[in-house]
């Protein structure tokens, strides 16, 4: 009897992210291709140029869910889009790994949705604590984007500041189209803050910093992870971006062989430095690839694999640290400050 080898099974990981995710996909594809044996893993990248309106994200999710051989999805970019897309994946029973979405509502999005990053309550508390302990904040203004990311972070920060007895002078909603200078000036009529917290994307954050510093020299600006788009921020706002504190989930100087290898590979493949979102997305993609190789091309088996991390099986050693989804998981939170156009690690205690 002559044995024959059947062709390896074809599997797909969907990747729904903004256009900035292209380099991550390049790196992940190269790394996956280096693994011999097991099912072939293809990454299908469904990108949008900018923003994540809910209707667009739902359409993307439905598009991806219909892809044959799709095993799991990494995405989407922001909290709002991810929340909008999560029901599609949960209904289709497709594991969804969220790399950077932080809305606490994602925890309840469904049994097939897994968050890689910390939630906005924890990040808000982290920012609030930093503002008070490290920057000595006595009066704080908060600018937030009026979506799940912005309101979630705003609530987390407000709760922390309230607990520490620090008053919040103004809470102003912004969006990418807002007339930020006017809103900043308007907020100043209600009091001069010594610390401004931005729960907005990089565009609004840059404008807030620009306008605030023009009116209140020496004011400290802290931004959430949503503003961590270093290149456009620095390129657009130049020195006005300098000294802004921004929360990150990972920095290229992170210790560990996985991190160092990733930084080297990323620079080699893309020609630029890796950022926090790159590392988080990379971890999500590689974790799913590992799951498919370990348990086979089955959505339910991959979901079980993810649930078992840190308990029945060891936590996944990723670029951003150990990854598991149990109750004791502690995703990394790093405070950085822009200096000379680069994000530098800042001690938090």
């Amino acid at each position: 009897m002559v044995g024959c080898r059947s062709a390896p099974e074809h599997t797909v990981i969907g990747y729904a992210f903004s256009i900035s995710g292209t380099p991550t996909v390049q790196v992940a594809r190269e790394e996956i291709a280096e693994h011999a044996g097991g099912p072939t893993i293809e990454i299908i990248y469904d990108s949008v140029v900018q923003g994540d309106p809910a209707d667009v994200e739902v359409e993307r999710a439905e598009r991806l869910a219909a892809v044959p051989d799709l095993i799991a999805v990494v995405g989407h970019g922001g909290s709002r889009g991810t929340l909008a897309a999560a029901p599609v994946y949960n209904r289709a029973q497709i594991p969804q790994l969220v790399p950077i979405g932080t809305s606490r509502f994602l925890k309840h999005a469904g049994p097939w949705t897994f968050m890689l990053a910390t939630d906005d309550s924890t990040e808000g508390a982290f920012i609030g604590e930093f503002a008070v302990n490290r920057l000595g904040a006595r009066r704080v203004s908060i600018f937030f984007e009026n979506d799940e990311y912005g309101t979630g972070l705003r609530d987390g920060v407000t709760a922390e500041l309230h607990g520490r007895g620090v008053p919040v002078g103004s809470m102003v909603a912004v969006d990418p189209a807002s007339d930020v200078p006017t809103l900043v000036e308007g907020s100043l009529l209600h009091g001069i803050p010594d610390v401004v917290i931005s729960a907005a994307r990089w565009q609004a954050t840059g404008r807030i910093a620009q306008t605030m510093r023009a009116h209140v020299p020496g004011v400290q600006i802290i931004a959430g992870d949503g503003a961590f788009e270093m290149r456009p921020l620095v390129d657009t706002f130049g020195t006005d971006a300098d000294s802004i504190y921004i929360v990150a989930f990972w920095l290229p100087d992170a210790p560990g062989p996985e991190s160092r290898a990733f930084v080297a590979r990323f620079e080699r493949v893309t020609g630029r430095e890796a950022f926090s979102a790159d590392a988080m997305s990379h971890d999500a993609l590689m974790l799913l690839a590992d799951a498919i190789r370990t348990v086979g091309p089955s959505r339910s088996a991959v979901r079980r694999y993810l649930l078992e991390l840190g308990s029945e099986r060891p936590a996944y050693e990723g670029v951003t640290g150990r990854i598991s989804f149990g109750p004791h998981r502690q995703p990394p939170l790093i405070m950085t400050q822009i200096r000379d156009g680069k994000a530098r690690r800042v001690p938090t205690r």
Partner: protein
Amino acid sequence: MTRPRVSLSLRVTLMLVIAGVALYVLIIALYLTAWMRPATERLARQSAPVLYLFGELSDRALGIEEALRLTRRPALTPQARVQTAEQVRSVIGDAGDRSLAEAFASLPSEMRVVLARADDRASRLRNTLVEYAALLELGRLPEATARAHVADSLRGLLRESLASAQRIGLEDLVQRERALSAAANRAVAFLAFWVGLGLVLLPLGLLTVERRVRRPLADLEAGLSRVADGDLNTQLPVTRLDEFGRVITHFNETTRILRDRAQEQGRFAAAGELIAGVAHEVNNPLMAIATLATARLDEVENSEQRAELELIHRQARRAGKLISGLLRFVRPAEHHTTVVEVNDVVREAVDLLSYQFGVDEIEVVQHLDPAILCSVCNPGGLEQVLVNLLSNAIDAVRLTKPPRRIVVESWRKDRTVFVAVEDHGPGIDPAVQARLFRPFASTKGQKGTGLGLYISRQIVREAGGDLTVESIPAAGARFSISLPAALSVATGPLQASPLPAGRATTLAGMDILLVDDEESIRRPLAKYLTRRGATVREASDGIEGIAAINDRLPDAVVADVRMPRMDGVAMYHALTRDHPTACDRVLFLSGDLSQLADLGGTTISAARVLVKPIDLSELDARIRALVSGNSAREAVSGLESGPDPR
């Protein structure tokens, strides 16, 4: 006779009925809880966020409308502008801060997209109004006016989105309502089908239970009731070969055995009555023989003649003793317990069967504990048990060739008295041994009743003991009775009181009245008592006896129980009424203690009765004890109540 039908066993039938009912209930319960309820809940749950979102977006739209209305109000002074700005922020504030994410998640995609778009537009409009408020506060009125116009134009888009969302939402709600209605209709149809099926199956189930359970049970109950009423001819028809069929078969068989046993018992009882009558009639001549022999002993000097007379006396006594034992055995047992000297009962039982031992050449070896072994039990019952065991042992050893031997042992260990009857017969088959003490288990075929050992064990257990058996096939069997030992030795009822010290040793000076219809007994007794120094008067029945007592109150009256005209008990009752003093002086002679019970209603103590054939020395002693006891009592009574009127 109809042949019993072969059908499913009752157990299986009942299990099928129960399983059918359980399945029926389970299907309905599962349908309602596992399918119907989640389906309706899901529909209801999905409606809730739609309604919530409509409410929420309407609130926001109303806030925005109100804010837009405020933008059209002229604000000329800085204070008015600040006030308007505050009002604008206030009306669009709270509602806009609430996240709709959770509600969005449970919506269908199309609605989610439309509502998300409406929410985005509301958010943009809201931010524009916030900018308007800021510009108003900063006094940049032309820009504020421009923002107000932008907001106004965005309102149209928002309205369009909301209208679209409303349309989809309403369609969705209508669809849900239809789905709910369809689900309700399906539920009604399902339940109607199952209720209909239940209505068809219920009579079938009830009929099955009626035919297979209730009716046979009622028949059985009626049969048992007839048996309880004494109708041992009751037989029930066996219509099925199920469990009830088997129970009824057993019932019929048991009733037949009971009927046979009852007939046998009847024959036994009749034989017992016959034996009792014969024994009584034999007792009187035996007593006459023994009394005459004793009386003649004092008159005869010749030693050979004395030896002959003593032999006559001994044989008469032996025969009397056998008769007593026979009477005791055939009389219905009295269920009274008393302290019993176990060895005495063993000896009496052995004596009772001594003839049988002799005929069958059986040597009875008695290893009886020399100490007095007392137990509290029914002596008649214990004797019955021992006779039964000995009879069984005789039957067993008969199957072997002589020499045949039966060993009877008694001993005491701690607080238990043991009696064992051991034979060297063929032993008991182990299969039979397991059911030996059950009713109707017999190794003797038609010869045995199958109740002997069962009743024997019951009697012993009622006394707080047990009856066990050990057997080695071909080597014999050993039955052991264990009884709780009595703590102290009590005096038996028939035992004569010992003579008090200093009492008279002769009957000299005593006036004794002998009342007996049998001259052959009365005369030798009178002769004996006279020779012992007493003054003896004679009467042939109770009437003459009372006349003699009326004539002169004797020191003692010895009266037979059975007499013509007026028996001893009637005489005693008459004396109780007319001569209470004389009552204390009466001793009775009886062939059978149970005669007193037969005469009924008597208060005569068994201690006053001497059972024939009586030993004359015992009669002597009892008369002396009676007279001296009465004298002492009367002396005490006289001291308490003054001089005797006599």
